[in-house]
């Protein structure tokens, strides 16, 4: 569609140029009007080209991201509003039977090599802090709360969903 528009605009521009030849002795105003028309047509053509280029670039970026995710299992997106969910034990997420957690219980689990994470909209996230460490302590503080909000950057690495958290609040 944009290509057709572009072709039409360029045709208009050429037509406008051609129209100038028919005038043997054009008045100064007519010349100015034609120059203005040509400039306007050129501007529109330029805008159409820029829009088309932006669309192509956006599509290429989205496609690259999807292909990257499909091939390497990696993707990244940021969130300002945050993700809402609750703290759960990883193995409970797999079994579907959820244990009620507390600060002490989370510590006990992690010290026994069992991991907790954040369940939001059916997805289990491992939560990391800005330093890149597994932030079980941040999760422990809000364990047992029905509604926890985490802000940060969400990524998917090797099939595992993670949040690099900037804020954890209940």
């Amino acid at each position, binding site marked *: 569609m944009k290509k057709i528009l572009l072709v039409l605009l360029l045709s208009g521009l050429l037509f406008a140029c051609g129209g100038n030849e028919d005038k043997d002795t054009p008045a100064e105003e007519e010349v100015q009007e034609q120059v203005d028309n040509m400039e306007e047509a050129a501007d529109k053509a330029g805008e159409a080209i820029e829009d088309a280029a932006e669309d192509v670039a956006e599509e290429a970026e989205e496609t690259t991201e999807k292909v990257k995710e499909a091939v390497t299992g990696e993707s990244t997106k940021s969130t300002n509003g945050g993700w809402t969910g609750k703290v759960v034990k990883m193995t409970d997420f797999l079994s579907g039977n959820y244990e009620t957690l507390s600060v002490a219980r989370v510590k006990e689990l992690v010290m026994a*090599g*069992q*991991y907790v994470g954040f369940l939001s909209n059916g997805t289990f996230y491992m939560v*990391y802090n800005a330093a*890149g460490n*597994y932030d*079980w302590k941040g999760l422990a503080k809000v364990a047992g709360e029905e509604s926890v909000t985490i802000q940060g950057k969400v990524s998917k690495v090797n*099939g595992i*969903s*993670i949040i690099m958290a900037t804020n954890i609040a209940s």
Partner: protein
Amino acid sequence: MKKLFVAILISVSVMGLALTQMDINAQSGLTGTTVSLSSEFINSSVSIDKERAVELYKAGQALAFKSNGKLYFVMNAAGNLDTKSLIKHAGGDYTIGGSVKSAKGFNYIIANSYN
């Protein structure tokens, strides 16, 4: 053309999603090594030795098993993460026998042997 491209992308995504939600049961042995999840997430994939694995475990940092570029959580028959076995075998390649599964976005092994 654009619509066709978008339709193909959506179809591929739906098929991929369906596959990742599918349970894949396979009785097999996987050879790999113990890794730190944090290191994997920041793309500094390095094999860790037993001492480092113990250090990470004590700090509550997550460990996993990496085989052929894939990360697996390892569980025992009781359904608990078998972090202690990952620590025990850290520092070199080893083979885990058991049931390999893929569900809810996770790859995991229900282990019954370590060699």
